[in-house]
């Protein structure tokens, strides 16, 4: 990382960078239940939030924590919870509620190995499909990832901004390696950080409809306590927020929950590339494994193998266009990940089977060292 960007340089763990990012984004409410390897996020915020007049609550369990941040978010607070695999499973139902009620909030999942309690202290990327499909029902989902402490800081801020802009829960998926890696983070001046706030109602309380259909597909939820009274429910509802059985209203609502993310995909999706322009072998890697891939691509290039890296920083919506563009240039794609092919499946779909997609899945709690990926690429060549 270069030190020439303006800002204050500090050494911190990914989890601490997440807490710092949350504060910078304006988060003043955290509810959670401690779980390795995410606990340092709660630990740091338990000190930082009260100093800023914010609230930190350790709830009785993960479900209650998710409920608490939804409640706080409805009062206008930027709200966060942080957890790991088992806790993420528990939060799915209320995460779906937040999607349905269109409540902006941020859920950080520092991934460890599963299923069940699995490997509490060891890294994995086994929750990437759960982030998309873990809660029942059709809806658009935004999930970001990060491969370093610096990116964790920046992506936490972005998660809040996207949540506020699109009125939806946003998930940040990092893993044990990123969460527990201590490295330099450049904290910019507050004035250099872009902060997004949700829309405010432009009508008085008598003429206000919380879920009014608008061209931008995004509702305007007035913070509770500001004189606006409306109903919030997990049932299918109409523009007033009250439940409906009207088939037209239901069809419009559920289509809108998906469309409101789909139509903004180009604004939401961001990818990094490394030596992809003339690549013959494409590597698709995300989170901490992207660092393995950077090292492996450089080693391959030294050996004369034209490898290149496509690294999504947003996992959902999936970067279909970028994957298809890569598939049309390369001879094969390799997908290293700390699961048994969850994103390799998406890459195959997105590439429309135009090139072979090779999985490199590791699920023993160890990271993938660059040499293991280099060997896989050699094999494919």
């Amino acid at each position, binding site marked *: *990382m*270069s030190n020439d960007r303006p800002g204050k*340089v500090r*050494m911190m763990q990914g989890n601490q960078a997440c807490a710092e990012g949350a504060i910078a984004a304006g988060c003043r409410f955290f509810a959670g239940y401690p779980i*390795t390897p995410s606990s340092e996020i709660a630990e740091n915020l338990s000190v930082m939030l009260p100093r800023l007049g914010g609230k930190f609550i350790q709830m009785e369990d993960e479900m209650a924590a998710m409920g608490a941040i939804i409640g706080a978010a409805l009062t206008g607070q930027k709200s966060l919870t942080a957890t790991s695999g088992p806790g993420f499973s528990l939060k799915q139902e209320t995460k779906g509620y937040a999607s349905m009620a269109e409540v902006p909030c941020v859920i950080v999942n520092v991934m460890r190995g599963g299923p069940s309690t699995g490997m*509490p*202290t*060891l890294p994995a990327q086994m929750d990437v499909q759960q982030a998309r499909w873990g809660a029942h029902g059709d809806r658009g989902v935004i999930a970001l990832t990060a491969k*370093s402490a610096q990116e964790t800081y920046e992506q936490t801020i972005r998660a809040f901004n996207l949540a506020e802009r699109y009125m939806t829960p946003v998930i940040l998926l990092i893993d044990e*390696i990123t969460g*527990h*890696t*201590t*490295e*330099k983070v450049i904290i910019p001046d507050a004035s250099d950080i872009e902060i997004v706030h949700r829309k405010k109602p432009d009508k008085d309380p008598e003429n206000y409809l919380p879920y009014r259909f608008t061209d931008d597909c995004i509702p305007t939820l007035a913070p509770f306590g500001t004189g606006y009274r409306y109903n919030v429910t997990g049932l299918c509802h109409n523009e007033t927020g009250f439940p409906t059985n009207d088939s037209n209203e239901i069809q419009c609502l559920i289509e809108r929950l998906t469309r409101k993310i789909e139509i903004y995909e180009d604004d939401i999706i961001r990818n990094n590339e490394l030596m992809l322009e003339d690549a013959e072998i494409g590597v698709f890697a995300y989170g*901490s494994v992207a*660092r*393995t891939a*950077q*090292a492996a691509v*450089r080693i391959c290039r030294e050996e004369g193998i034209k490898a290149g890296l496509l690294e999504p920083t947003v996992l959902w919506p999936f970067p279909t266009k970028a994957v298809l563009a890569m598939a049309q240039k390369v001879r094969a794609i390799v997908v290293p990940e700390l699961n048994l092919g969850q994103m390799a499946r998406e890459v195959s779909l997105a590439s429309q089977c135009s090139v072979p997609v090779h999985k490199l899945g590791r699920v023993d709690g160890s*990271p993938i*060292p*660059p*040499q293991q990926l280099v060997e896989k690429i050699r094999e494919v060549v």
Partner: protein
Amino acid sequence: MDRYDVRLSGSGGQGLILAGKILAEAAAIYDGHNAVQTQSYGPEARGGASKAEVVIKDGEIDYPKAMDLDLLLSLTQESCTKYSGDLKEDGIMIVDSEMVKDPPGGSFKLYSAPITSIAADKIGKVVVTNIVALGILSKIAGVVTEESMRKAILARVPKGTEEINMKAFDEGWKTGEELLAE
């Protein structure tokens, strides 16, 4: 400098993760290199083989975990047996001579000293074993300056323990000098 990979290994609870953070901060904040510190430990709060790793380099560090080790510190036999496989042929191994009775053979340089006993007997507190170890390894490795190590230790240790930690570092540094002279 080129990539320099360090692994600090022992048993959970010996303070090796803190030692790793101090080494990384000395290199990155006070010496102006880049450094990354990672860790690996089991689900238990105490015991079990535990390790902290530090990669020091000028410029971007892609893969954050240690790969080919330039230096391995082992405070227990279990961790030495488990984590020594990646040591370079010309690498450095530093072990606690009373805990590691059977270090693996190889062409690397082996330095052994009763690190835990130095902390217990000369400083009077086993809890500073990690700082004694930092004194020894920073003297022997020579990749981080003495002044930066002292600053990094003082910035991390609890208030009121500065003196005892500096004493532990001095004792380690002195031991390192003796080992190099042998």
